[in-house]
């Protein structure tokens, strides 16, 4: 399309001239998840950036979980109050599709890799959407208490042990949504990993998954917030539970609880930034300036000192060192570590976009029964 070529050429030219002269806003609202993750962002790059730019005032909003709803409402109102939003890849795709997130020219907006690689090469296949600037790879996986007497010394070694209430009696915690649980249920019911989604498209497949979940339904505590499972495990309310691997890491290593992690068939997913569509020029200039800094090779590697999520850049991996306070090696705790990633589900973004409504209705009805 000639028109588009022409347009983008003028747009780039325009940006080139304005970017230099552009005043940057003194205020920025960053939306994130709260907790240990937000803290890692704060320490790895927000605080260093604020030291370089003392004039900037950062406000945090901890509502990444409801980002799509809020951005939609803000868009309806024509009043965008968020400047930079941390979301999961699935939400980023949704926001991008709906025109609520800005499409980003990666090469221009982001720093090239420390090793000289281009942005596209450095992030590789983590660039799943035109609007999504990946930061980390994380997994939803299981943690279990190591001091359960009834288990007689046995510990879970594979995902299907969560369905084995004979060997591993006790309460489990699972997330209160179909995503993840349905896959695990089918997989543990003998469906091959690659056939799981085909199976879930059929009524029989859904019934089969729910029937499998039925076998442990009475033993399940359902969680909605990422902090629930760590708290439940720490309090001894549950003996096995799924949550984000970074939360488990901090429970095990930082809080020193008798809990261990299970790396099998975990749900592998990405998290990163989006810039809302419709920011004014000064704010956009500030956001881009911040992003350039916050997503460079060193900063992403720094973040891994505070939380055990894999940096999104390949060039950051060699720079990952030890935990900032505990001094332990971080790499073995990352979901990107080859040993951990030998058997994992990759979150099926487009599949879930289609079947989420339907399966959610089925799942909630099943829960209510």
């Amino acid at each position, binding site marked *: *399309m*000639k*028109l588009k070529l*022409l*347009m983008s050429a003028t747009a780039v030219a325009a940006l080139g001239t304005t970017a230099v002269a552009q005043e940057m806003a003194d205020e920025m609202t960053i939306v994130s998840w709260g907790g240990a993750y937000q803290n890692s962002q704060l320490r790895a790059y927000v605080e260093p950036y604020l030291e370089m730019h003392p004039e900037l005032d950062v406000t945090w909003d901890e509502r990444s*979980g*409801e980002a*799509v*709803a*809020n951005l*939609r409402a803000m868009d309806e109102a024509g009043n965008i109050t968020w400047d930079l939003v941390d979301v999961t890849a699935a939400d980023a795709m*949704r926001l991008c*599709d*709906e*025109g609520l997130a800005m499409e980003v020219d990666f090469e221009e907006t982001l720093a090239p890799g420390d090793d000289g690689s281009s942005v596209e090469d450095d992030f590789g296949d983590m660039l799943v959407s035109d609007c999504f600037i990946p930061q980390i790879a994380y997994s939803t996986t299981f943690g279990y208490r190591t001091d359960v007497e*009834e288990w007689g010394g046995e510990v879970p070694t594979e995902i299907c042990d969560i369905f084995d209430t004979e060997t591993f009696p006790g*309460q489990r915690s699972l997330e*209160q949504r179909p995503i993840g649980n349905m896959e695990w249920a089918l997989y543990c019911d003998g469906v091959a990993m690659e056939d799981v989604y085909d199976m879930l498209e059929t009524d029989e497949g859904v*019934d089969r998954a*729910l029937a499998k979940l039925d076998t442990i339904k009475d033993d399940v*505590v*359902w969680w909605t917030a990422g902090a629930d499972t760590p708290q439940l495990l720490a*309090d*001894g*309310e549950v003996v096995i539970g799924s949550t984000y691997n970074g939360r488990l890491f901090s429970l095990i290593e930082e809080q020193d609880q008798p809990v261990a992690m299970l790396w099998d068939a975990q749900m592998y997913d990405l998290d990163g930034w989006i810039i809302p569509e419709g920011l004014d020029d000064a704010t956009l200039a500030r956001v881009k300036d911040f992003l350039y800094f916050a997503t460079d090779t060193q900063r992403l590697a720094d973040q891994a000192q505070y939380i055990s999520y894999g940096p999104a850049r390949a060039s950051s991996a060699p720079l990952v060192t030890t935990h900032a306070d505990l001094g332990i090696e971080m790499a073995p705790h990352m979901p990107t570590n080859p040993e951990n990633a030998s058997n994992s589900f990759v979150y099926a973004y*487009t599949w879930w*976009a*289609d*079947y*989420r*409504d*339907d399966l*959610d*209705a*089925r799942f*909630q*009805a*099943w*829960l*209510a*029964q």
Partner: protein
Amino acid sequence: MSDQTASGRPESPQSPVAALPGGEVTERDQDGPMLAADGRPLKSSLARALRREKLRALALIAPLLVFIFISFVLPIADMLFRSVQNDIVADTLPRTVVALANDPLEEEGVPSESTFAQFYTDLYIAEEYKEHTRLGSRLNYEMSGISSLFRGTGRAVGRFDTDIYADQFEAADPAFEDPAAWADWMADDDIRAALPLTTDAYDAWAGIAVELDEDNPAEEDPEDIVYTSLYRDLANGAAPPAPFPQVDVSGFESVSIRELFIEEDEDWADPEVWETIRAYSSRYTSGYFLNAADMQTTPEGVELRPENERVYMTLFVRTLWMSLVITFSCILLAYPISFLLATLPARHANLLMILVLLPFWTSLLVRTSAWKVLLQNEGVINDILVWIGIVSDTNRLALINNATGTIIAMTHILLPFMILPLYSVMKTIPPSYMRAARSLGAKDWTAFWRVWFPLSVPGIGAGSILVFIMSIGYYITPEIVGGTRGVFISNRIAYHISTSLNWGLAAALGTILLVVVLALYWVYDRLVGIDNVKLG
């Protein structure tokens, strides 16, 4: 002190407020033709005064009425409207909706080429404005898979092989290459009238160029949708007047837009997709309400969803049932202590009343946190029970994240709302009645049951309705202590607003809940009178 309520009114709660001093003005004007001091007939003078008084009263109320209307009533009405609103299909696919309405869908339920051509224009425009995925998400509530169908095809629609038309027109007459010439033609009313499809597509494209790309349409080449529409206009036999170039399209190579779509995704040949689009193309829908009632529309008509997909009725029934249980527990607990408070000497009653008022004044979140701490498996209550030896350490009671947790915590939270009305009614029962009953030979129990209890029933009624109304709309406490089996319909509404983003369904569920609450409110007003709600 005779009365603990903040209002400090000694009258019975049933005393009508309307019986105010000053009501006598209306009675006097019946008296006949008398003259007031200024010589006017007293009757008209009084009527005028009355009118002025009414106006003055309304003037005092008006600011608040306007305030409540704008800040509260209007927002709720606006949200409720979302439960039937369905503009998105007609707004995003305006051409398709019209074409579909006239399309007999003869070919196995799949639209004809001309409908597909209109759909092509619509989808092309929607993709530019990024509205097609939102439409996809909307229709996905009705049929799984439509979301990705729209998303995938939206991505492809700009790359359809319809560019052959632009090439052929430009080859036939070089004037087509000049954007300014296009702009001139499209300013000519005769040409516009002769080429309806082209005009429509050109206007839409020019709108995109101006609004989204900030370009001047007179300097840009029109997109493929314009040429495709032009081909269809001319193939339909349109004869645009000069200066529009005369082109014979009969020799043009053509493509079937229908085939292009089906090639892109074979689901476009699925009649169910088109049936869904057609069914939801009107601007108002009952779909959300049907969904909220666990029903669905099928080709055979409206019917209940399969049992394993019903969730809202279960939730409504559970909300009502648990609210009843909570109300009943509140009556059970409130009655004895209201009785005690009403019969104790005022000095003692006042002291004990503080124990009721303190929870009433304490933050809801404080009380909910307290129950979270108390009810956990490893919480204080279980610890005590294990210590006493009632339950074994391995068999701790599950008191939280289920219905039990919600009922216990909410009974505690709503108990003051039962005690206060009950107490204020009991306060008005003269103690001499009981003494009279006893002196007439009634046993304690009989005196209570035949005399005291019937007199306290209005208090039970007032308290029960109040507690029940508050209970069925609760959100925070079930959210924190309710788990999955102890949550209410409110929690589901919140979920649809902030997580699943099905705002129409949230509005429909909200409307049903609101209707129930308002009905109870009406009953309460009839029985007790809203003026007689007492606080603290």
